[in-house]
């Protein structure tokens, strides 16, 4: 059998373990649902809407998220107990349809309203807004919190334009814990907003991802180049430069993130060193080592560290550093139990 996924560029081939590029997302979802039947299910009305198996949870605020595929564990890996309730799944790096968002909303709604919690991308926003209007018309109250943690995507005075990247994991975790303990919609939304406001991320790309239906990389880096500030769709970052040592890269990411956080002596933080896909977790720990040194210098206390793949960009090589400044309540919410196929309690 000949390979069907052999698009060429510059003499290179898309090297993926896939079947038809067009079925990538649907086959991935089929495999995922087969692997985790006790934890996830589809909404009965829509293939691209997934829910935690016990949704709707009566009397509790539902959290509906969504976005493009290709970022696992984000988004659907954060659907579960103490996390998001449902997710609308888009094509690779593309927004989910408003139909899928609406279906997830209807299937998740437990009578206490819905929090839409997702990354700040125009396409996602447009589709979520449409779905929210339609849900509203059905009597489902909703609130929306956009995640915009990526400091490299716009300057501080235009932070509302910033995209959402790995930091959304902290928003899912804290808002999910608030919903799980029974907070009302306004409170869950406030927790989500507070978490986002205290979260900053910056990433570095070493190579680009290849979208299956496109068949060639979204951007090309020279063999000795890195892209500082890269987005999780391979959006260009703030600068392109020669590859540097892990410590130098960690310093640049840390400086970008720390500049906007209030890291005083004794302050508590959560740290996430996230792999973008192809970078070995060994390298993430080498980055974390330096971040820990830098935080030690500031006198900040690492309450919890997360090192691994949380928000990826298919097979992109690279990493991001996220820091969340914690208050007492966020700390408790971060530590509260949660469970999904991708999240360990």
């Amino acid at each position, binding site marked *: 059998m000949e390979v069907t996924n052999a698009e060429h560029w510059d003499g290179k081939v898309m090297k993926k373990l896939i079947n038809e590029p067009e079925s990538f997302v649907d086959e991935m979802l089929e495999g995922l649902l087969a692997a985790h039947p006790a934890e996830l299910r589809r909404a009965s009305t829509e293939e691209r809407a997934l829910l935690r198996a016990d949704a709707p949870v009566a009397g509790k605020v539902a959290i509906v998220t969504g976005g493009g595929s290709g970022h696992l564990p984000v988004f659907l890996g954060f659907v579960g107990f103490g996390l998001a309730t449902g997710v609308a799944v*888009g*094509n690779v790096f593309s927004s989910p349809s408003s139909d899928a968002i609406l279906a997830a909303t209807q299937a998740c709604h437990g009578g206490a309203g819905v929090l839409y919690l997702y990354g700040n991308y125009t396409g996602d926003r447009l*589709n979520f807004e*449409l779905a929210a209007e339609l849900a509203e018309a059905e009597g489902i109250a909703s609130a929306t919190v956009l995640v915009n943690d990526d400091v*490299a995507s716009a300057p501080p005075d235009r932070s509302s*334009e910033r995209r959402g990247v790995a930091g959304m994991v902290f928003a899912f975790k804290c808002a999910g814990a608030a919903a799980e303990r029974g907070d009302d919609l306004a409170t869950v939304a406030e927790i989500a907003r507070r978490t986002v406001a205290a979260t900053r991320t910056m990433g570095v790309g070493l190579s680009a991802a290849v979208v299956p239906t496109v068949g060639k990389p979204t951007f090309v880096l020279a063999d000795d180049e890195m892209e500082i500030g890269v987005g999780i769709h391979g*959006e260009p970052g703030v600068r392109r430069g020669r590859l540097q040592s892990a410590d130098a890269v960690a310093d640049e990411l840390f400086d970008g993130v720390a500049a906007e956080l209030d890291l005083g002596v004794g302050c508590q933080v959560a740290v996430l060193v996230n792999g973008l896909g192809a970078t070995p977790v060994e390298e993430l720990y080498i980055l974390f080592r330096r971040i820990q040194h830098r935080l030690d210098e500031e006198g900040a206390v690492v309450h919890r560290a997360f090192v691994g793949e949380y928000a990826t960009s298919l097979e992109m090589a690279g990493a991001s550093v996220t820091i969340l400044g914690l208050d007492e309540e966020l700390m408790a919410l971060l530590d509260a139990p949660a469970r999904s196929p991708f999240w360990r309690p």
Partner: protein
Amino acid sequence: MTGQELAEWLRQALPMLSEAREELGDLDAAAGDGDLGTTVAGGAEAVAAALAGMASTASPGEVLRVAVRVFAKTNPSSFSALLGAGVLAGARTLGDAAEVDATATLNVGRVAAAVIAERGQSAVGDRTVLDALVPSLDALAGTLSGSRAQQLQAMITAAQSGTEQTATMVPRRGRAAWVGERSRGFSDAGATAYLRFLEGLSRSRDRS
């Protein structure tokens, strides 16, 4: 033009968008995430299939509604969501009328452009599809008394020059905004998609 004629015209125009898959993907990649080729080409193919299956009695408004819904649903994205919201609102101005003429088309376009600008919080000059769409509607307004071929040619000329100008603009909206200066030298992908669509309509007309 009846609904059936409109459907057929559109259907023959759409392959032009499939052919532009790579061009649009590359332009979008220069400034954003590179998915516009898939959005537009994939959407166009789905729309063509849907139009082929439509009842011959459908009104022009119905044809537009079906086409743009299928387009928006096939590959949801900024572009398809904005275009979907815009054209759906525009199609509403046609009501159930059995025919559509240039003036009615201009109305559809004006409403669509207004909705895109509103939802997208964008304006001409922000390096978006509006930079091709709005000038082309102005051109149509200036040739309402001409032949359909003249109208289309004027629209294409205007859209072309609008699209070319986007290459000198710094993007202020959408994913491209983060790239800033970096995208200079490349035309906006959405504007180019609209231009290719007009060219498809013109080619389709020439053939028939």
